[in-house]
């Protein structure tokens, strides 16, 4: 390592620990002295650069960060609150929708489901009988009246027809009971005048404020039932 190279190396980095630079210092006392001089200079520079740092700088830095964090957190909690509120509202709406909307599309679907649900409860040859008077008493809730009995009425009571208060009548049929529903008109279920599945047939009659639905098996003449209902029912306004 020649003198110029050595000087440049030491000037650039006085604490140069390169093998070359150390070797050169050991071989040449004047180089060693030069290196020491520059080291001293560096020490002075270091001293000079050590300007005093304000005592309160640490506190200021931490304070500023704490304030900034606090603001961010405040903003975050507000966002979180808004999110939670939105989720709650959506949850409420969904729950509402699920509870109060019908799973059935039309009167027929629901009527069949309802009949199947109650099928086992009343036997076609049951001995119970409901009088015309008590039927009409119940019909009063729908402003309706039957002028004469349609047949042997086995059972008559109010029931929930997809959430609506309606009258559920069960008549003795030819082979199995015939079910008649008196249902107030409602937008939720669309009107179907005839429906069936593989066992049961049904038909609906539309009146001013109510629908009357008849469901029976294939042995029943639904047309005849409809005819006699139309003939006997009357509505007070």
């Amino acid at each position: 390592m020649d003198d110029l190279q050595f000087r440049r190396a030491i000037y650039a980095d006085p604490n140069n620990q390169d093998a070359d630079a150390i070797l050169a210092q050991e071989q040449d006392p004047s180089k060693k002295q030069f290196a020491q001089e520059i080291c001293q200079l560096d020490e002075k520079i270091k001293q000079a650069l050590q300007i005093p740092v304000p005592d309160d700088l640490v506190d200021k830095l931490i304070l500023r960060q704490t304030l900034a964090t606090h603001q961010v957190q405040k903003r975050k909690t507000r966002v979180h609150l808004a999110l939670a509120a939105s989720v709650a509202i959506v949850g409420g709406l969904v729950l509402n929708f699920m509870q109060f909307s019908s799973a059935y599309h039309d009167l027929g679907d629901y009527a069949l489901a309802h009949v199947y649900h109650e099928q086992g409860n009343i036997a076609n040859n049951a001995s119970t009988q409901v009088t015309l008077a008590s039927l009409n008493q119940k019909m009063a809730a729908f402003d309706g009246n039957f002028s004469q009995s349609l047949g042997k009425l086995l059972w008559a009571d109010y029931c929930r027809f997809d959430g609506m208060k309606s009258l559920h009548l069960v008549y003795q049929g030819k082979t199995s009971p015939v079910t008649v529903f008196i249902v107030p008109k409602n937008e939720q279920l669309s009107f179907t005048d005839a429906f069936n599945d593989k066992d049961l047939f049904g038909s609906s009659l539309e009146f001013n404020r109510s629908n009357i639905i008849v469901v029976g098996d294939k042995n029943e003449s639904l047309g005849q039932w409809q005819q006699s209902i139309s003939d006997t029912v009357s509505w007070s306004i």
Partner: protein
Amino acid sequence: MMTKQVRYEALVKALHGDLYRYAYWLCHEKQVAEDLVQETFLRAWRALDSLKDEKAAKSWLITILRRENARRFERKRFDMSEYEEASITDTKSVTTEQELENHWLREKISQLPPEYSEPLILQVLGGFSGEDIAAMLDLNKNTVMTRLFRARNQLKEALEAEPVKRGMYNG
């Protein structure tokens, strides 16, 4: 959250001094240096998660600070004339020979062109190697070494040109 806070406070305590001094030598004004350090640490806090290697913290902070300093010039067109020598820190009344010399040397360092003083400060104050400085300043290593050489060379020449006796004479 707590650990981040702890990390941040540790970082502040360990490095605020170096950073402040570096900022001071970059801008030569105490108040500006303090503002720069504040901005730097605030940015550092926001990006603290991206700091994986604690050993790299110092150069990371210095990089942020340099960017902050550059931004300062974007925001406001400074009068780029030479700063007044009077604005150079004269923190303590010059009492001892050592402090007198410090003061004198500070002036000389301030008078170095920034492209020479910056690597010098990073090397002496920051303890960075030539490679580190080259990476931070986006220069190649040979350029950095040449600038370091010139910086020391100029300071040494200035020191030698100065009369042996200087400062106040009493009596």
